[in-house]
C-alpha cells in the first residue's frame, strides 16, 4: 500500500495528479514520514524548474497596468462599494470554458498548492444557504461559505446527512455555463456533518452541487443533485 502511494510523489510535486488522487495521497502523507521526506526533496526540485527559464524583461505597460489596479484598490479601501467593484479583475477573451477532464487536473493543482490557505483564511465571508432534496436527505442542511475574494474558492458545510451507503461517497460539483465539473469528495461523521473545499475560483460558477457517487469519485454525476447552492 505504501509503495502504491509513494509512486505518486513526483506527480504530486509537479501538480500532475488529478484532484481525487491528490486527495488520497494527501491522506497518506499525514501518516507517512518517508513520503513526506521524499516529497520535500521532489518539491524543492520542482520549485527549481520555475527558476530555469530564459529570462525576459516584462513590458513597462504591464507594471503600469498592474500598479494602476493596485493603487485604485488601495485608494478605495475607505469606500467599500468601490473596492468590491475593483476586486473583479478584467479577464481577456482568451479564457474560454473549462473542459471536465482538464478541470479535474486544475482542481488537482489547486488542492496541491492552495487548499491549505483556503481553509484557514476566509476573509469577510458570505454564506449561501443550499437547497436540499428532502426526499433523499430528510434531515439535511447545507451552506456555502464564500470568502470576499471569490478567486479563493469556497467551503461547503453540511449537517444531518445520512451515510452515503456502502462503497459510496458524497461528491461536489460546480456548474460553469452548461458544463458540470467534478471538484472534490467528502464523507460525513456519525452525526452527518462534513465539509468540502471548492479550491478554485468561483468566477463563472453558477451553482455548487452534491451527488452520491461510488467511493473514489466519478467524472460525471450519476444522479440528480441532492444539494444545490446557487452562487
Amino acid at each position, binding site marked *: 500500500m505504501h509503495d502504491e502511494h509513494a509512486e505518486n510523489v513526483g506527480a504530486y510535486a509537479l501538480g500532475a495528479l488529478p484532484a481525487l488522487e491528490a486527495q488520497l495521497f494527501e491522506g497518506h502523507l499525514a501518516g507517512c514520514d518517508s513520503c513526506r521526506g521524499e516529497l520535500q526533496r521532489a518539491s524543492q526540485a520542482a*520549485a527549481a524548474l*520555475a527558476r530555469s527559464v530564459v529570462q525576459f524583461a516584462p513590458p513597462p505597460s504591464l507594471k503600469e497596468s498592474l*500598479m494602476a489596479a493596485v493603487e485604485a*484598490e488601495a485608494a478605495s479601501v475607505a469606500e467599500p462599494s468601490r473596492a468590491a467593484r475593483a476586486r473583479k479583475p478584467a479577464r481577456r477573451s482568451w479564457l474560454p470554458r473549462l473542459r471536465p477532464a482538464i478541470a479535474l487536473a*486544475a482542481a488537482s493543482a489547486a488542492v496541491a498548492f492552495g487548499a491549505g490557505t483556503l481553509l484557514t*483564511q476566509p476573509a469577510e465571508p458570505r454564506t449561501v444557504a443550499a437547497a436540499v432534496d428532502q426526499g433523499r436527505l430528510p434531515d439535511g442542511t447545507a451552506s456555502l461559505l464564500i470568502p470576499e475574494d471569490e478567486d479563493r474558492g469556497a467551503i461547503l458545510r453540511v449537517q444531518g446527512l445520512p451515510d452515503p451507503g456502502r462503497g459510496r461517497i458524497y461528491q461536489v460539483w460546480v456548474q460553469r455555463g452548461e458544463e458540470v465539473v467534478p471538484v472534490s469528495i467528502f464523507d460525513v461523521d456519525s452525526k452527518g456533518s462534513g465539509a468540502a473545499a471548492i479550491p478554485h475560483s468561483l468566477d463563472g460558477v453558477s451553482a455548487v452541487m452534491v451527488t452520491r457517487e461510488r467511493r473514489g469519485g466519478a467524472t460525471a454525476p450519476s444522479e440528480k443533485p441532492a444539494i444545490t447552492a446557487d452562487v
Partner: protein
Amino acid sequence: MESVQGGDSGAFETLYDRHGGAAYSLAYRIVGTRAAAEDATQEAFLSIWRSQKGYLAERGSVRNWILRIVRNRTIDSLRRSLVHDKRRASGDRIEETEPTPDRTDVEALRRDEARTIRTALEALPEQQMRVIELAYFGGFTHIEIAEMLDTPLGTVKGRMRLGLDKLHTELAEVVS
C-alpha cells in the same frame, strides 16, 4: 513582505520590481505568447496583493512562493483557454535568441542559476525530462501524459519521481 501584506502599494511595487521579470519569464515559458504571459503575470500579482496573509516564511523563499503562484495561475488559465495546441502559433512570441541583457549583478546571478538548472534538467534521461516538462510547464496530468506518449501510467509516475530525485541530487546547492 509584511508591508505588502499590510496593503502598502509602494512595498508591492518593490516586490514587483524584484520578481516581476522572473514571473513574466515563467508565464511566457508556459503560455508562449506575450499577451497571455502579461495577463497571467498581472493576475498572479493581483492575487498576491489581495491575499494579505498568503506568504509564510517557514515554507520557503518569497521568490519561490511568487513563482509557485504564477505557475499555478498560468496553468489554470492555460487549461481554461485550451490553447495547448494553438498557443505557439499566434505569432506573438518574443525572440528567444535575444533575451534581455543583464542590468545588475543580481540579474546576472539569476541567469547563471537558470543556466545551471537547465543544464541539470537536460542531463536527465530524455524520457524523464520530457514527462517533467510536460507536467510542470505544460500543465498536463500524468494521465494525459500517459495517453500522449502511449506509456503506462505507472511508468510516467516513475519517471517523474526518478527525474525529480536526480534533479535534486544534481542541484543540491541550488535548491537548498
